[in-house]
């Protein structure tokens, strides 16, 4: 029997993978991908809670799913802007390695 706790644990593990990616990796594109993993881990726990809180009409709580819809929209916008910044940075410095980008002004 799959319980709410199983979904929350899987969501937590996915979040931890994304978090470790942000902490450990030095390629800025991979860091952006790890950010996406963390956002989606949050989405999974939101949808699990939505399914857990069945409304009196016998339907899941759709407010959480609307929240997930907003998060997906924000994440897509964030990826677009983030990748545009990476392209601009690459034009200026010819690198995507965060340790090569350690000064605010050059």
């Amino acid at each position: 029997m799959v319980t709410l706790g199983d979904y929350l644990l899987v969501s937590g593990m996915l979040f931890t993978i994304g978090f470790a990616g942000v902490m450990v990796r030095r390629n800025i594109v991979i860091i952006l991908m790890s950010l996406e993993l963390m956002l989606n881990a949050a989405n999974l726990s939101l949808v699990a809670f939505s399914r857990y809180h069945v409304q009196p009409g016998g339907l899941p709580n759709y407010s959480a799913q609307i929240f997930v819809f907003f998060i997906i929209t924000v994440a897509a916008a964030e990826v677009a802007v983030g990748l545009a910044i990476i392209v601009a940075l690459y034009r200026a410095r010819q690198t995507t390695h965060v340790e090569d980008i350690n000064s605010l002004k050059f």
Partner: protein
Amino acid sequence: MPAYLFWPFALLMLVFGAAVVINRNPVASALSLVVSFLGLAALFMSLDAYFVGIIQVLVYAGAVMVLFLFIIMLLDLRVEKLRKINWVATTGGAVVALALLIQIFYVVGNFKAASQPFPPLTRSTIDDVHNIGSLLFSSYNLPFQVIGVLVLVATIGVVVLSKRELR
């Protein structure tokens, strides 16, 4: 969706999620990300959230993955040269992530509702696009418009950032 399909898809999602972080080749990372998100979409379906599952596939496996691959190929990122690994940063990051995982296990273990099965739905959610849509355009109308403005700002920002000369 039957309950025994939960663990295969959860495992698929976690293994390919780890592959995103472990792979040194950015293209392999991006493709692992897609497989991970497909597993996640299957988990959404198992929670009777069909609309969110479909949106996940369309937006992530469709749009975001293409964007990532486009940027990787535009910048011509190759397999990273083996740099000297900064062991202090790597160990520190791994320890912090492990502490976070232990904390999550502890919190979920102490959470009373976590050990109970999901209550049954008395109505099918196969038409949840209709339900989400009517809620989105009534109770959540203002956030919906704000998100529209956000997307517009992101579009303009990307166009400005992508200009050849930044001033």
